[in-house]
C-alpha cells in the first residue's frame, strides 16, 4: 500500500522563498491497483517519485510505502525498503557491458539471491517479457521497446510488491508504447501494484483506470475513467 498524508515538499533554491514542489498532497493506493500519474512539467511528478523511492523526505506530512514509514526511515534501512519496489525508467538504465540475462541477474545479486535462484528466476521473467531468445544480446543490440522490456523484466525479477514506472514509454516508438503498458497490466494481474507516470494522454485514455492528475504541486484530479481498451474488445 502507498499512502501520502498531508505531504508538503519545499525546495530551498537559495532565494528567500524557495519552491513549493508539493502542497498538501493526500493519496492512497491500495495493493494490486494500477494507477496512472499525469501532469505537466513542473507539476510535481518527479518529486512524488523521489518521495516514493526515499530519495527525499517530505518537508511535512507522512509517506508510507509497503509498510515502511519513509518519513522516519533510518538511512541504513533504505536499501531494504528499495528491494520491495521495482523501478522502470524512461532511459531504461541498463548496464551496457552486461548481456540481457546479466542485467536481470544483476538485480538479484544485489539483493543477495543464490546462484540457483538466479538460474531459475531470470529465464522465467525473460520469458514473461518474450525476450528469452535475446538473453545473450547486449542492450545496444536491442530496439528501444526491447530494452524497456528488459528493464521491466529487471524490475519484476525480485518480485516486488510495487513497481514504479517513470515515463516508461517516453523513449520508444509510440506504436510500441501500448505493448509496454499491456505488459505492465499483465504484471499487475499477478497482484503487483503499478504506479506509472506518463504525459501521454492518448495512452491514459486508451487504457483508462485510476488517474491521478497533479497540477502545481497539488492533486487536481483523482478518479477512475473508462478506457477505450474495453470498448475495442467489445466492438
Amino acid at each position, binding site marked *: 500500500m502507498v499512502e501520502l498524508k498531508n505531504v508538503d515538499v519545499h525546495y530551498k533554491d537559495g532565494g528567500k522563498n524557495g519552491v513549493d514542489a508539493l502542497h498538501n498532497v493526500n493519496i492512497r493506493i491500495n495493493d494490486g491497483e494500477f494507477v496512472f500519474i499525469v501532469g505537466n512539467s513542473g507539476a510535481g511528478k518527479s518529486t512524488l517519485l523521489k518521495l516514493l523511492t526515499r530519495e527525499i523526505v517530505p518537508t511535512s506530512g507522512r509517506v508510507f510505502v509497503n509498510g515502511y514509514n519513509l518519513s522516519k526511515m533510518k538511512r541504513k534501512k533504505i536499501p531494504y525498503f528499495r528491494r520491495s519496489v521495482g523501478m522502470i525508467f524512461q532511459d531504461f538504465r541498463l*548496464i551496457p557491458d552486461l548481456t540481457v540475462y546479466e542485467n536481470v541477474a*544483476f538485480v538479484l545479486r544485489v539483493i543477495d539471491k543464490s546462484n540457483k535462484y538466479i538460474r531459475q528466476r531470470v529465464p522465467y521473467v525473460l520469458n514473461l517479457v518474450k525476450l528469452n531468445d535475446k538473453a545473450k544480446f547486449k542492450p545496444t543490440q536491442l530496439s528501444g521497446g526491447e530494452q524497456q522490456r528488459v528493464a521491466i523484466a529487471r524490475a519484476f525479477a525480485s518480485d516486488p510488491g510495487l513497481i514504479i514506472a517513470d515515463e516508461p514509454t517516453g523513449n520508444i516508438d509510440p506504436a510500441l508504447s501500448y505493448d509496454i503498458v499491456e505488459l505492465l497490466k499483465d504484471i499487475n494481474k499477478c497482484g503487483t501494484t503499478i504506479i506509472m507516470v506518463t504525459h501521454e494522454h492518448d495512452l491514459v485514455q486508451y487504457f483508462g483506470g485510476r488517474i491521478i492528475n497533479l497540477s502545481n504541486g497539488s492533486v487536481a484530479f483523482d478518479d477512475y475513467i473508462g478506457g477505450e481498451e474495453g470498448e475495442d474488445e467489445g466492438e
Partner: protein
Amino acid sequence: MKGSNFSYLMKQGVVSVWRNRMMSFASFCIIMVSLLLISLSLLIVADVNIVIDNAEDKNEILVYVSDADQTDLDAVEQKIKSNSYVANVVFYSKEEAWEHQKAQMEEYAELFDALTENPMPDTFRVTISDLSKIETVKSDFETIKGVDSVSAPYDFASVLVSLRTTLGIIGGAVLIALIIVCVVIVYNSTRSSVFARRKEIGIMKSVGATNFFIKFPFFIEGMFIGIIAGIVSWLLTKLAYESLVSFFAGDLTIWQILGLVNVIQFSDVMWIALAFNCVAGAFLGAVGTILSMGKHLKV
C-alpha cells in the same frame, strides 16, 4: 552474504582494475615506488644501525686510576657500575698495561728496563649503553674519588649520534610524505572509478544495494592494486639492495673499517620483506579507497 555473491563482488573488484586501467596504473606506480623507497630505506637504516652498534661496542671510556690500592680500586669499580648508562666494565691492571706496552714496543726494551717504577695507571674500560650520554657519563666519572683522569672519544660519538638522529628524521619525513602521496593518488583513482561506474552505482542504489555491496568492489580494487605493487616493489628492492651490497663487497677494507661485516643479507629477510610490502601495499590501497568512498558514495 552468500558465497557466490561474495566471489562475484571480488571478481567485480579485480575486473574494475582493468576497466579503470589508466588510474589503476597510476596508483600502482606510486604505491610501488613508495614501497620500494620505504623498504630500501628500512634496510639501509638497519645497516647503519648495525654500524653504529658495532662502533658503540668499540667505543670505550677509559677511566685511569693512579696510586690506588685494591680497596680504592674496588670502590671506584662499584661507583662506575652504579651509573645507569654503564653496559660493561673491564679492569685492566697497571701490570697488564705495562706488559702490553712493552710487548708493543719491543725495540725499546732497554729503555723500559731502565725504568724502576711502572708508569702506567690502572684502567677501567667502560662501555656505555647510550652513546649520546657519553659526555654526562664522563663528567660523572671525573667526580669519583681516586679517579685520576677520564678519556672519552666525544667527536666520534657525537658524529654517530647525529648520523642516527638525522637518518631517523629524514627517513620519517620521507615515509610520511610518501604515504600522503600514495593515499591522495589512490583517492583520485577511486574517485575516477566511481565516476566511470556512476550509472551502475545509480542502478544498484535504485534496486536496493547496501553500502557494503556497492563499496566492497572498490575496496578490493584498491587492495588488489596495493598487493600487486607490493610484490613488484619487493622484487625491485631485492635487485637494488643486492646490487648495493655486492658493490660495497668489492672493497672489503671499507666494510671492515665501517664495521659492516655483519650487514643484513636480503635472503635472511626476504619473506618478512614480502609480507611487509604486501600488507603495506594493501593498507595504502585500502585507506585511499575508504577515504574516497566515504565522500563520494552516499547511498
